[in-house]
């Protein structure tokens, strides 16, 4: 007897993925293989099912990898990819550097404080992301709070130029993605049995070496999860570089936007998106593996 309940359970996520990932992706892929055209929609060929089998054949015949060779040939695109990778990697590193002590402090805090601290970490999500990024302009600009404070304190005489540089982008990304790093690390550290640290000390570790040999390795799954959660969206980040980065910061998300909306070259823009996805698939697979390994270890 066929089990419909089971089929339904298995089918639901596949249907979801099919409708909201696979079909859109195939459409984007198809556009990326098309050519630019001054028409609506702005590309050719269009699939004409009324022509029957011949129509499909001529449609497929007109698709080519021209846009991808164009991407490979123009240094603008691969520098944008490389610069995105660099910015995402560096900001992930700094996010980790800032987030780890915060997560550690939260995990060490008395039980009754923890919900409050957790609340404080999540609180920024209650305000619009866009507004929070915009408000950094007020802090980082030449007449902003940061420069005014530093000059008032007499630390600097001329304002630091931070806004519209990649530094501003790093600050923005670290700020915006901090909770995504804190939460997985905190959840790993919170589960850590305090007697493990005592055992390490009992066996001859100083507090410092107990941290390096026990706490850090045991929080590694949290660190890895946090890094992926920051790196993956940061790579395709568009809002932060376009608001804080000015014209000098090259990131693939911005290039993609300009290709779609300024140049209206949908086929090239689609090709950029497909390549970005291919770049991201590697870290996403690694991330999934890490999650699965952890689940297995937890059993």
């Amino acid at each position: 007897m066929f089990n419909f309940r089971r089929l339904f359970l298995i089918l639901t996520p596949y249907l979801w993925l099919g409708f909201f990932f696979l079909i859109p992706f195939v459409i984007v892929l198809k556009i990326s293989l098309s050519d630019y055209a001054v028409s609506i929609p702005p590309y050719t060929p269009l699939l004409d099912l009324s022509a029957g089998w011949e129509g499909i054949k001529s449609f497929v015949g007109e698709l080519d990898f021209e846009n991808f060779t164009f991407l490979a040939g123009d240094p603008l695109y691969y520098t944008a990819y490389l610069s995105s990778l660099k910015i995402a990697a560096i900001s992930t590193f700094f996010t980790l550097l800032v987030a780890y002590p915060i997560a550690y402090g939260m995990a060490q805090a008395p039980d009754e404080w923890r919900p409050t601290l957790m609340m404080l970490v999540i609180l920024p999500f209650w305000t619009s992301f866009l507004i929070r990024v915009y408000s950094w302009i007020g802090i980082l600009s030449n007449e902003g709070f940061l420069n005014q404070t530093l000059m008032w304190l007499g630390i600097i005489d001329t304002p630091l130029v931070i806004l519209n540089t990649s530094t501003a982008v790093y600050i923005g990304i670290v700020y915006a993605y901090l909770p995504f790093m804190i939460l997985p690390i905190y959840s790993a550290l919170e589960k850590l049995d305090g007697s493990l640290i005592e055992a390490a000390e009992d066996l001859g570790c100083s507090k410092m070496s107990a941290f390096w040999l026990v706490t850090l390795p045991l929080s590694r799954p949290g660190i890895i999860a946090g890094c992926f959660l920051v790196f993956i969206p940061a790579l395709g980040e568009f809002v932060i570089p376009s608001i804080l980065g000015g014209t000098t910061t090259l990131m693939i998300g911005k290039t993609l936007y300009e290709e779609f909306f300024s140049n209206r070259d949908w086929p090239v823009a689609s090709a950029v998106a497909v390549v970005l996805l291919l770049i991201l698939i590697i870290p996403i697979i690694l991330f999934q593996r890490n999650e699965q390994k952890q689940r297995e270890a937890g059993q």
Partner: protein
Amino acid sequence: MAQPANRPVFAPWNDPKEKPLIQFQNVSKRFGEFTAIDNITLDIFRREFFALLGPSGCGKTTLMRMLAGFETPTEGKILLDGVDLAPIPPNKRETNMMFQSYALFPHLSVWENIAFGLKRSDMPKDKIPARVEEMLRLTRLEKFAKRKPHQISGGQRQRVALARSLAKAPKLLLLDEPLGALDKKLRQDTQFELMDIQEKTGTTFVIVTHDQEEAMTVASRVAVMDHGKMIQVDTPDKIYEMPNSVYVADFIGDVNIVEGKAAAQAGDKLTINWAEGQPAINATSAGPLTAGSTVHFAIRPEKVAIARDKPEGRANVIAGKVHDIAYLGNISTYKVRVAGGLMIKAQVANERRLSRRDITWEDDVWLSFTDTAGVVLLK
């Protein structure tokens, strides 16, 4: 008592020339308003298997954590080999601890767990593998050296924890409820294994437990604690046979407590009036008592005989009615109601088959015991 004359008895606590390994000198520990340890003075000797026994919250774990260095005494001093422990941090102490949760490092294999302490010591690198192998052999874990802690059973984890804490050959090994997580059968086997390993290595063991049977089985001496105080520190047989208080008598094993007034005393013999119209209990007391003072007479159920006919020539004979019978297989416990509604338990080994038991519910029976079978307690 029954030791052969040619074998020396291990009792360093009776030898005034013996230097104790650990000395607690008027140690108190307070957490805010709460006094966890209340002015304890105690000596523990080399090669002892010393048990700290008491209900949860009695301070036994705090006492042990002070030895390990995770707590510092509020008052008083703890000496290890004559050296004050207070300024020495846990990682510099020559003590190792086996944690209740075992606290095995989940990211390290069994081998690496055991080697962990050795790598932090000044042992030369090339000597470490040999020492780890030795520990694996001692705890019969050779086959599991490469496994991670989550890949082995609870009993094996317990042995890894023991091997890891013994690897550095500490002067003192602390065991915090080491067998609490094991089931009863495995626990009993492991108790003997622990004693074996303690004897082989000659390490001084201090064990914390709330299981009186465990303490009695493994320990050379038992300290019974309550509310941060040492109530009695003695060998298991003395704790059982000669408890110094109702608390100890009640905590260790099963006991009948009869409250009464001390009457005539002749030498070490005295009589206790315990109920109107009943013959006084004839008992033996270690010290003199003022006539008329309230005393507690404690007697173990297995020292009370039960019979259908009135026995002749016993020092104490009390009439009663069987209220309840608990059949435990090897023994049966009879709960007998005597004068004044008092329940006295008598325990009898089941030498005959159950179907041939001649005493049953609501039978009139006679309880009897000798005048040295019980102890007279003042508090």
